[in-house]
């Protein structure tokens, strides 16, 4: 086994290339800049396009345009950039434009700390658009995950024709680490479903699926619009047509919830405590669980890699046997609200930290032992 050694951000870029990404537009921001740097080195030799927009809003607009011409697009930013992306992300959600967006999170609010990590944006990514239509958010825990989950992100973006976020963190993106890149198992690549019938209505779709795609610039004329539209892509005020489309935008993602639930579990025999976490924090949780097992006080762990849509069935199933649930997050309590909502009859304890430092395994053990 030979190891590679790179930042999570570079691993994410390599995942994008493996997924067939051929367009990147972004704007520099710490701690996400090295994704842009990597794509600038990797895309031109592959015949892909990599540009720096005049700002974040423009970068997202370039990605939208390129995606509508059939490209597989990536952009990367951090919390302040996600704020600026918001209006364009709403467009991409409502008008079913495939995009992958890497959010290398830093400590907020606002400009916050450029070089300090936190899982600041977990609710923002889900709700930072108008309408409340669901999006997909994946959370890597290390560089290897950045590589693999980016391929999943592209697959989901293509299949569901929606923006997919990768909720990375400064502590993953800018930490260099060793991992076995060559033996990573990547999912098979999913390509956008193309329209192949006679009369093309750009938004005509099965009731729980994304519409088949045709690119702007192809033989068949295509309409794309940010306005409320019917299957023909023209503005509509017909309540039935609107309701049907709104329902479909939800269903296409929620009905596939089980299939897009990615996670890792470490269930230990005879334990009554389950510690749920995600992202970089789950590494400290694993360390804490191993130490506790050595002390004869084992706990089980569940690491979520799909945060949105909320893996409801997984949470219900995996927590059933446990008396005590503890959620640990690198913020003051964002995702724990979803877990409490799903596990409404269970007591869910929480520890969060938002000070620019990683949560240590010692702190997590203290939390577990004090419960």
């Amino acid at each position, binding site marked *: *086994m*030979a*190891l590679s*050694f*790179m930042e999570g951000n*570079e691993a994410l870029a*390599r995942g994008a290339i493996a997924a067939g990404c051929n*367009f990147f537009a972004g704007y520099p921001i*710490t701690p996400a800049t090295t994704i842009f740097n990597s794509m600038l*080195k*990797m895309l*031109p*030799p592959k015949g892909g*396009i*990599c*540009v720096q*927009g*005049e*700002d974040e*809003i*423009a970068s*997202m*607009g*370039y*990605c*939208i*345009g*390129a*995606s509508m*011409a*059939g490209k597989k697009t990536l952009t990367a930013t951090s919390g302040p950039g996600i704020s600026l992306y918001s209006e*364009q992300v709403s*467009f991409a959600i409502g008008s079913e434009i495939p995009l992958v967006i890497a959010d290398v999170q830093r400590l907020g609010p606002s400009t916050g700390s*450029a*070089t300090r990590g936190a899982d600041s944006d977990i609710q923002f990514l889900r709700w930072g658009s108008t309408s409340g239509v669901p999006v997909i958010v994946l959370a890597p825990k290390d560089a290897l995950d950045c590589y693999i989950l980016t391929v999943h992100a592209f697959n989901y973006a293509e299949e569901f024709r929606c923006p997919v976020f990768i909720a990375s963190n400064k*502590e993953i993106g*800018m*930490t*260099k*680490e*060793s991992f076995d890149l*060559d033996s990573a198992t990547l999912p098979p690549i999913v390509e956008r479903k193309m329209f192949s019938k006679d009369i093309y209505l750009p938004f005509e779709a099965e009731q729980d699926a994304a519409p088949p795609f045709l*690119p*702007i*610039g192809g033989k*068949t*004329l*295509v*309409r794309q*619009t*940010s306005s409320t539209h019917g299957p023909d*892509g023209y503005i509509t005020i017909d309540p039935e047509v609107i309701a049907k489309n709104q329902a479909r935008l939800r269903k296409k993602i929620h009905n596939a919830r089980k299939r897009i639930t990615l996670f890792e579990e470490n269930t230990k025999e005879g334990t009554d405590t389950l510690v749920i976490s995600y992202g970089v924090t789950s*590494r*400290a949780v*694993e*360390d804490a669980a*191993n130490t506790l097992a050595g002390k004869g006080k084992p706990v089980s762990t569940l690491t979520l890699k799909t945060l949105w849509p909320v893996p409801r069935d997984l949470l219900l199933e995996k927590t059933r046997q446990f008396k005590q649930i503890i959620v640990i997050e690198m913020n003051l309590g964002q995702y724990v609200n979803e877990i409490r909502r799903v596990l409404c009859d269970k007591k869910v304890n929480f520890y969060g930290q938002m000070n620019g430092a*990683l949560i*240590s*395994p010692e702190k997590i053990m203290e939390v577990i032992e004090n419960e």
Partner: protein
Amino acid sequence: MNSYLNKTRPPVYCPGCSHEKITKGLDKAMANLNLPADKTVIVTDIGCSGLFDTFFNVHALHGVHGRALTYASGLKLADPELNVIVTMGDGGLGIGGAHVLASCRRNLDLTLIILNNFNFGMTGGQYSSTTPTDAIAGSGFLNHAEIPLDICSVARSAGATYVARCSSLDAGLAEKIAGAIEHKGFSIIETLGMCTGRYTKKNKLTPITLDQMIMDLPEACGVIKKNKRPEYGERYRALAKERTTFPKAPVFEKKMTLEDYQRQEVVILGSAGMRIVTAGDIVCYAGLYAGMNVSMKNDYNITVLRGQSVSEILISPEKIGYAGIKSPSVILALSDEGVLRRKKIFATLSPDAFILKEKSVTIPETCANVLEIDFRKLKIKKQDWALASLGVMAKKGKTINKKMLDHALKSRFNEKVYLLAMEIIEKISKV
């Protein structure tokens, strides 16, 4: 004559609105140029100009206010064969000013038609970035305290290669639009028009006054010679084509086996310019060649050659989970500002931890082993202190050994730099 107008969706403007003239002018221009419908896209944003995409049988993208040029740029970069025509009102111009400037500078082959009718027609005639100071607009007195924007002059100074201005009632409108579309590079054509639903209700505007306004403004009638340069897409593709080498991920083959190697934590405390990050990389490479797992976090200021530079390295036979430092096994204390940044860790050290301290550096009280080295006396330059310290670590068998270090240096540096590095390592090893 061939027409692209969508018969099922005729223009729906207020009576007398000059947008209708521009719709017909654009159609005629496209027909004159015989643009293939399947290789033409109209990109619009919000407002009355945002209705344009529905009137034509070509590809269409209608998006968020002020951002039309961003989608247009993405489309054109992705498909250079597309004829990309953008319509935008004075509202979109105000909101998306940054994109207009960037498009002028970049010179990607897009055509921007600005439909300037001096106010926000759709929301009640509020003032925009082009409303004359003395006009009566829907925002009360607010426009009386501002001046309107002359976008043609701005575009010229922003590097646009084609800038034209005309009345939307101009008999030669179609030819003028065609001229802008034909131009290879970014072209702007500003049309001055009448918003009969709002603006002209309180402001006297006639075909003659529109012509007079154009006469009073600096001339803008096409190619800007001083800005002439290659089209961006072609330039981009030529430059990108020269980048032929894909950067493969470096792979570190295990070259040796270490017995009883325990998890090591190394913290290098220095300053910018001391090649701290390079030294950190070398320690990691050394670990990798011994088949270990490694991780490295760096902490430095955004400024170059100023401020602290700290590298935190973990080397472990086990997979690394938590990547924070708990209790370092080795600290290289090479500058005061680096030490200040991590002064709390000195209290966490165990008695068998090893500290290499440069003579001039002050460190907090500690129970660890401290070796003081006077690099200055040894005539080792400050930028090489971190590297020399690795030589000391290898000699003493702290975290790395000589063989590991040798493999790491060979991998990190080219031969010339490797030999220079070895000179320093040998110099310090003799002390």
